[in-house]
């Protein structure tokens, strides 16, 4: 990109990134100390904290948050590592890899709704075994979802996070020379799992530390997933805080803000604890790594992980398949395994609503992702030019730090802080505000996806193009961007699916004036109208999967298609031209 003033652009961009983060943080911190001008509170005080710590629900919620928020990432990491160790470089595993992307693409809420359909007492799992095995003619009186221990929430989190971690790990395999290490190790007589335990996982962990942190922060602070499938009364801390923030009694906001600050501290301390325990584990296992044992008992931990991991994947897929079945079901009595009558009328009945929700969803997703792509390109170009000038290819740029902040901070609290800014700017309830908030969460993922391919692009092509024919902008688009098409499409698909999954940003910026498939699906998940909820969740899952598929399908064929169409046009011109001369 023929950018000038890159230094200026860098700082302006950094400022634009920092302002919302700073305002969001200040907007959470000040009310936590009773300072909130919109409500006429100007006196700093510790009373929100006193209220918070004397509230019984706070402790119950905190306990649940810690159990689910630490349990889910540990399980996800264990299962992802086990599956990778078991299947890496084996032929059938590429099939599993291909199945990962739909699970990656679909919004959390859709997965949670699918799991609700699968695991609840009247869900498909019980139906399949009833009545021939269980004897149930009616749904049993179990609490298998939204259980008070958060088990179903943990399952949902694992099903969503494990594929993500697996995906991230697969992309780093080349850089740690996994294949070669395995060959060398196996020649030395080591078993596959032992090699992973002793050689590969220790190398892999530092590279995927950041994605793991993102997963931990997400698990501790997730709202939509916990609303659908998490426990209520008490709920997890993030959900409890959301209820307090939305309480008609505005003074609850102070306590909620204090809670949001506490949640932020929780994330920081859990991450610190996580890192500490990693340090300890690697210290303890260090001597074990070189003891020469070719196989060990702890290999079985990985073996067990494979079985559990496969079960979790299977769960995720069945949950996905149940969404369209419910949306097409007319009559589906317990304990039938499949609907006895099918119909399209569910979709027709909800047609106008679904159309409106879909339009909103796609509009927001398209605009925020396109913006994110454009901004990412500018950011990457300034970074590339910087690297070119300084010869420091390993140095992290300012953006590489800033970009993670929004996804590591808890949305709850932070977004309510930003909401105050939106009200001042009179942008609350505006479509622009929703797109702006989505952009904040889409941008990091788009940037990270584009970063590798963009920076490793062979700049010689672009230089040669400009030497042959100096048209910097046209060549930038026609040569560089065109050659980076696969990465651009993938980044777009990822950004798109991130936007579709957003719940709180839409809710807070839109103030209920704009609903998307996600906000409506979450709101209705508890309603019990499974046919309608199934329709929404199905559409919610459909678009990201479609876009992911297109992003895989189009770039490979683009040039062939383009040349083919061009040929057709030329041929038809020739055809008409000949006719003309004949006449």
């Amino acid at each position: 990109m023929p950018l000038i003033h890159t230094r200026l652009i860098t700082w302006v961009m950094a400022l634009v990134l920092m302002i919302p983060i700073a305002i969001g943080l200040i907007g959470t911190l000040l009310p936590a100390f009773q300072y909130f001008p919109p409500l006429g509170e100007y006196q700093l005080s510790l009373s929100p904290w006193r209220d918070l710590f004397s509230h019984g629900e706070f402790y119950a919620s905190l306990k649940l948050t810690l159990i689910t928020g630490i349990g889910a990432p540990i399980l996800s990491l264990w299962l992802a590592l086990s599956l990778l160790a078991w299947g890496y470089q084996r032929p059938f595993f590429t099939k599993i890899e291909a199945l990962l992307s739909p699970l990656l693409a679909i919004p959390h809420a859709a997965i949670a709704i699918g799991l609700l359909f699968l695991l609840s007492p009247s869900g498909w799992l019980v139906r399949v075994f009833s009545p021939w095995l269980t004897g149930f003619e009616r749904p049993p009186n179990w609490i298998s979802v939204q259980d008070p221990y958060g088990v179903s929430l943990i399952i949902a989190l694992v099903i969503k996070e494990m594929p993500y971690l697996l995906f991230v790990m697969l992309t780093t395999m080349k850089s740690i020379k996994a294949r070669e290490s395995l060959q060398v190790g196996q020649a030395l007589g080591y078993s596959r799992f032992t090699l992973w335990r002793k050689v590969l996982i220790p190398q892999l962990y530092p590279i995927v530390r950041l994605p793991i942190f993102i997963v931990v922060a997400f698990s501790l602070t997730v709202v939509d997933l916990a609303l659908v499938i998490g426990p209520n009364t008490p709920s997890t801390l993030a959900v409890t805080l959301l209820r307090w923030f939305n309480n008609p009694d505005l003074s609850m906001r102070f306590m909620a803000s204090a809670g949001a600050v506490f949640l932020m501290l929780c994330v920081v301390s859990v991450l610190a604890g996580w890192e500490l325990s990693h340090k300890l584990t690697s210290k303890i296992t260090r001597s074990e790594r070189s003891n020469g044992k070719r196989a060990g008992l702890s290999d079985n931990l990985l073996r067990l992980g494979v079985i559990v991991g496969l079960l979790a994947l299977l769960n995720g897929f069945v949950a996905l398949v149940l969404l369209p079945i419910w949306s097409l079901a007319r009559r589906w009595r317990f304990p039938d395994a499949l609907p006895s009558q099918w119909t399209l009328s569910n979709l027709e009945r909800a047609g106008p609503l679904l159309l409106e929700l879909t339009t909103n969803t796609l509009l927001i997703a398209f605009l925020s992702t396109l913006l994110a792509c454009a901004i990412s390109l500018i950011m990457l170009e300034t970074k590339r030019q910087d690297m070119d000038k300084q010869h420091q290819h390993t140095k992290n740029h300012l953006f590489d730090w800033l970009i993670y902040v929004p996804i590591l901070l808890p949305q709850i609290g932070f977004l309510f802080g930003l909401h105050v800014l939106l009200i001042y700017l009179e942008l609350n309830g505006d479509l622009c505000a929703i797109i702006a908030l989505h952009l904040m969460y889409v941008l990091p993922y788009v940037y990270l996806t584009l970063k590798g391919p963009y920076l490793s692009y062979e700049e010689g092509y672009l230089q040669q193009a400009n030497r042959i024919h100096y048209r910097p902008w046209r060549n930038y688009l026609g040569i560089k961007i065109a050659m980076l098409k696969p990465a651009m499409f993938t980044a777009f698909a990822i950004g798109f699916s991130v936007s579709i999954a957003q719940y709180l940003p839409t809710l807070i910026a839109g103030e209920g004036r704009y609903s998307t498939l996600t906000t409506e699906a979450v709101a209705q998940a508890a309603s019990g109208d499974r046919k309608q909820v199934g329709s929404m969740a199905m559409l919610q899952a459909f678009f990201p999967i479609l876009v992911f598929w297109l992003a895989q399908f189009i770039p490979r064929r683009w040039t062939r298609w383009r040349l083919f169409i061009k040929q057709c046009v030329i041929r038809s011109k020739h055809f008409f031209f000949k006719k003309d001369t004949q006449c």
Partner: protein
Amino acid sequence: MLIVKDFCLSLKDKRLIQHVSFDIDNGQVLSIMGPSGIGKSSLLHFLSGTLHQSLTATGEAFLNDTALHGKPTTARRVGLLQQMPLLFPHMSILENLLFAIAEDIPPEQRHKMAQQALEKLGIPDKANALPKELSGGQQARVALLRTLLSKPDYLLLDEPFSKLDPALRRDVRAFVLAEIRHANIPALLVTHDSEDAKAMQGKCLELEKAT
């Protein structure tokens, strides 16, 4: 005619090339040889105006009577051919050639020029093929013709034959020389291979480590 006067190159305090002068007539190729890291490629970058900031170069370069050294790359009308053919992988061969032909020429004329280039290469049927469908030798030739179609005033060749099969090299070398003579522009070739220099039938300049 390309004239270089008193060219010196240094990296920080390290002197690389000292006081090199030469001139190249139209249709002639001057070959420059020398050990790796001496700054042969940097000389090309100096002439094309893309010298890296960490290097300091002094000296003057003239094309006929106009000074080159002060001009930006885009105003120099330079053609550069590198080790890699750098054909754009997402464009057909024809599109790659058309890319180089000036815009102000009428479309039919442009097409004709590109088609002629393909015929010269003996691959008129490959117009709509993608670069990866061509052999290495063909790619190298297409890359040269693409550069020449942009009508450069002088040509810089940075080891363009080194990635080719030895068997192919002879043909490609002869092709390059014939095309340069045909275009009647001065060309500077940087190479490791004395065979390259011989094949170009021009003068050869050996650079030595500065003391």
